[in-house]
């Protein structure tokens, strides 16, 4: 590839022999991607895989919205609808958000800490390919699922697959097995990836980069990966239990045989809630890098930001049962989990205030990455507040299982996490491809997607307040839900148009975009000190850092950061 040639021409001793060339085998770009153990290429593969599945799961979302646009819709059958919602949720979480998060961290962490690669490059490739193939394995259920009488194609028990709906008695055929096993495989990939990243951060930092000089992004990546390593295994355990139950006669979740129907939910949500933080912390991490650079100020209160993140990581372990306020927990249980849930608002609020304080007194450059971050802050504020409403158990008894919850978590995942990912793409794409993303197309993307986002999800709050439950494939006219659903469907079309702008921009700019240069944003972290795209070995000589903003020190020798830390 291009950077490979450049390295050879530069003729330095650091040029590694490329395995294909050495052995005289052809090195087309496909072999290059398949054989690679380079964290940057794997990072881009992760993000590319995520975007690919994002398009597929987005099309499912459009079908769901088409079915619900009007009462008594006939776009899908009930069975297809249940498959669509299950696949949409599962794919968006496990094969869109997770790969993109891993891709972001994979690409950036070694560059940010001044390392040449991950601690275990081949394990890194292994993690990626597990994620990649498990996604296709899940999609294969569309083909392999049906056949048995009454069996569906793709899994159709909802993305959190509440037992005992997933038992053989209620879900015939292999669709649930495809769901369970693909999630299990991707979980193994995530845990190995998480270990790899943690080891890299702890052991491979460049000279002078103490823990308290790591960029916030790396800190948040470390906490994220800790959560991955601790909370993915309960889910994997539950998937193994489910498979044992479905095929080997185990009775974990079968109430008639002495099992417990809510045991599954405990297992699922002790993974499921930290999962929200696994996804949102990398978005926080992105915001924590972009907001300072575009406000031209260091992050406000770095130690407190780190402490808040660690605190969020710990508290997130004790809140899972707020997904279960309506299963009939006793008053003590409900109150405990409500209080723990509300407590998370404190460190999260602190982060919000610190981002605002970073912007305060700065010179805010309204470039594309920053615009997405500002939208993130606004939307995440609303998502956090509806989260507080849901955390108050009595209010949750009304709102749980309704479209209000749908609106809330799409505000978190789309309005928050996805906007963080958009910010990430616009900010670091120039580093990865050496070319800027087109600004005009980016603005189209921003406005179409943001208008679409609000048209889609704002009305769903009201549908929920008017009693519309989630996961219904149809509704009768006269329940007061028609208008909200119609607006919601129109909004989905806007979002689709915005997403098309993004995809076009990503493809077009790779060839035709403006040349970026090494440091297009006048930024301060180490990745901007190497070339765009970086060479395979990242840094010619390992950099040495004396503060949290090494490039600031370089650019402002008269006023370096290290004097104040």
């Amino acid at each position, binding site marked *: 590839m291009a950077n490979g040639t450049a390295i050879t021409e530069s003729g330095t001793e650091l040029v590694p022999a490329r395995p294909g060339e050495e052995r005289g085998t052809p090195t087309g770009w496909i072999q290059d991607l398949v054989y690679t153990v380079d964290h940057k290429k794997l990072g881009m593969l992760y993000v590319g895989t995520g975007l690919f599945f994002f398009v597929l799961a987005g099309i499912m979302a459009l079908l769901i919205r088409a079915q619900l646009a009007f009462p008594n819709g006939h776009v899908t059958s009930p069975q297809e609808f*249940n498959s669509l919602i299950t696949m949409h949720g599962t794919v968006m979480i496990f094969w869109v958000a997770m790969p993109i998060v891993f891709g972001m961290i994979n690409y950036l962490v070694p560059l940010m800490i001044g390392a040449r690669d991950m601690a275990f490059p081949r394990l890194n490739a292994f993690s990626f390919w597990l994620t990649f193939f498990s996604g296709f394995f899940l999609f294969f259920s569309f083909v392999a699922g049906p056949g048995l009488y009454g069996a569906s194609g793709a899994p159709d*028990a909802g993305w959190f697959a509440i037992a005992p709906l997933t038992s053989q008695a209620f879900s015939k055929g292999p669709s649930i097995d495809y769901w369970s096993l693909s999630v299990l495989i991707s979980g193994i990939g995530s845990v190995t990836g998480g270990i790899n990243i943690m080891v890299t951060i702890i052991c491979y930092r460049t000279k002078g980069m103490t823990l308290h000089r790591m960029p916030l992004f790396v800190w948040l990546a470390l906490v994220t990966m800790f959560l991955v390593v601790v909370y993915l295994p309960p889910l994997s355990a539950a998937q193994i239990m489910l498979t044992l139950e479905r095929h080997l006669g185990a009775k974990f979740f079968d109430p008639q045989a002495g099992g417990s129907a809510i045991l599954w939910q405990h297992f699922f949500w002790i993974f499921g809630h930290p999962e929200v933080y696994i996804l949102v912390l990398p978005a926080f991490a992105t915001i924590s890098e972009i907001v300072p650079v575009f406000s031209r100020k260091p992050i406000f209160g770095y130690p407190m930001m780190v402490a808040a993140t660690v605190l969020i990581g710990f508290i997130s372990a004790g809140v899972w049962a707020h997904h279960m306020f309506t299963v009939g927990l006793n008053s003590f249980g409900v109150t405990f989990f409500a209080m723990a849930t509300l407590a998370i608002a404190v460190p999260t609020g602190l982060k919000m205030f*610190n981002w605002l*304080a970073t912007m305060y007194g700065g010179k805010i450059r309204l470039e594309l990455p920053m615009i997405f971050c500002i939208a993130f802050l606004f939307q995440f504020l609303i998502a956090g*507040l*509806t989260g507080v409403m849901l955390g*108050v158990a009595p209010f*949750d008894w*009304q709102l749980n299982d309704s479209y209000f919850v749908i609106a809330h978590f799409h505000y978190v995942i789309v309005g928050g996490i996805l906007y963080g990912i958009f910010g990430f793409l616009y900010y670091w794409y120039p580093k990865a491809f050496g070319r800027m993303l087109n600004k005009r197309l980016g603005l189209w993307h921003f406005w179409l997607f943001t208008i679409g986002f609000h048209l889609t999800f704002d009305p769903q709050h009201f549908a929920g307040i008017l009693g519309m439950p989630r996961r219904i494939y149809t509704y009768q006219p006269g329940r007061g839900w028609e208008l909200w659903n119609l607006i919601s469907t129109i909004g989905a079309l806007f979002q689709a148009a915005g997403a098309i702008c993004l995809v076009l921009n990503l493809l077009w700019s790779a060839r035709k975009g403006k040349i970026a240069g090494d440091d297009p944003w006048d930024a301060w972290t180490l990745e901007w000190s190497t070339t765009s795209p970086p060479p395979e070995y990242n840094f010619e000589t390992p950099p040495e850092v004396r503060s949290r903003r090494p490039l600031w020190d370089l650019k402002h020798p008269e006023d370096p950061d290290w004097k104040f830390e």
Partner: protein
Amino acid sequence: MFRRAFLLLTAAVPGTVGAQSADQVRSVQNIFTPVGAPAELLNQTAILVLLICLGIFLVVGGLLLYAVVRYRRRTTDDDTTEPPQVYGSTAIELAWTVPPILIVVVLALATARTVGEIQNPKFTGDPLQVRIVGHRFWWEVHYPKYNIVTANEIHVPVSYLSAPRPVEMTLASADVVHGFWVPELNGKEWLVPDRENKWWIQPTSLGIYLGNCTVLCGYQHANMLIRVVVESPEDFDAWATRQQRPPNPDPGTEAGQKDFGANSCGSCHTIDGTTYSGIFGPNLTHFMSRQTLGSGVAPNDDANLKSWLRDPQELKPGCLMPDMKLGPKQVDEIMAYLKTLN
């Protein structure tokens, strides 16, 4: 304050909200127009939380807007200099964690109080006991003290302030997890196969309240609808008396009764006073007293009933009642028989 006064007023005087009558269908439910004690308690907490969240939204949203507008770089700005580099202030940061902590404490206390009030109620008046069993995709309703078994429509007497009549529900499930939710009467509670959850309502005005199953339970989760019929105590007693009487089928419908047995309808459905005693489907003893078919999927009229008997999968695709391939004559005969079950 106005809202609370309004709620107290509506609680005290039944029938003040619009012109209430027992057959008015309140199809548009709204969690902010609660009817009766539990929903009103939830609503009070909800309003408190909403107001606090609105306040936070205005303050933080305002700060964000201010920061973006005030500190955005202008074309007139000098690009060569950087703004003052401020690294943070532990004192300030600690200071602005205090308001969130206080708010969380207030919300936690409000939560604890309301949770206690809803989950451990002290009933005034003798609660009516109703046992509800969730099935895919319909509701089985028992009145143990009255010895009544019916389905999908829950009749309860209205609760007056002078004569409170709470309804205590026991929620159970025959198969998978379901959720019981009638927004104006109370929040939702799940029906879990290995549990017996307690829940209650205390409706203070007449009408028919619509609700839904809230937990995905299969293909017809969407058409697992609930109707709570709140009637005057006299109407409720009349309904109960009628339900307790076995049906008195017209001898002219004997052919239909035979068809019913010959096509094994009786293996799933019970009709008191006959040998049909299946428990897999809804009890049909007083079938004609119900307003809807298929757990609310369609009104219980001749055209729909005929369609349902011909092939239930047409009105409710994926429901567990199979197409029995009845001939037109059988359909007419069975229909004539069912129409005598009132």
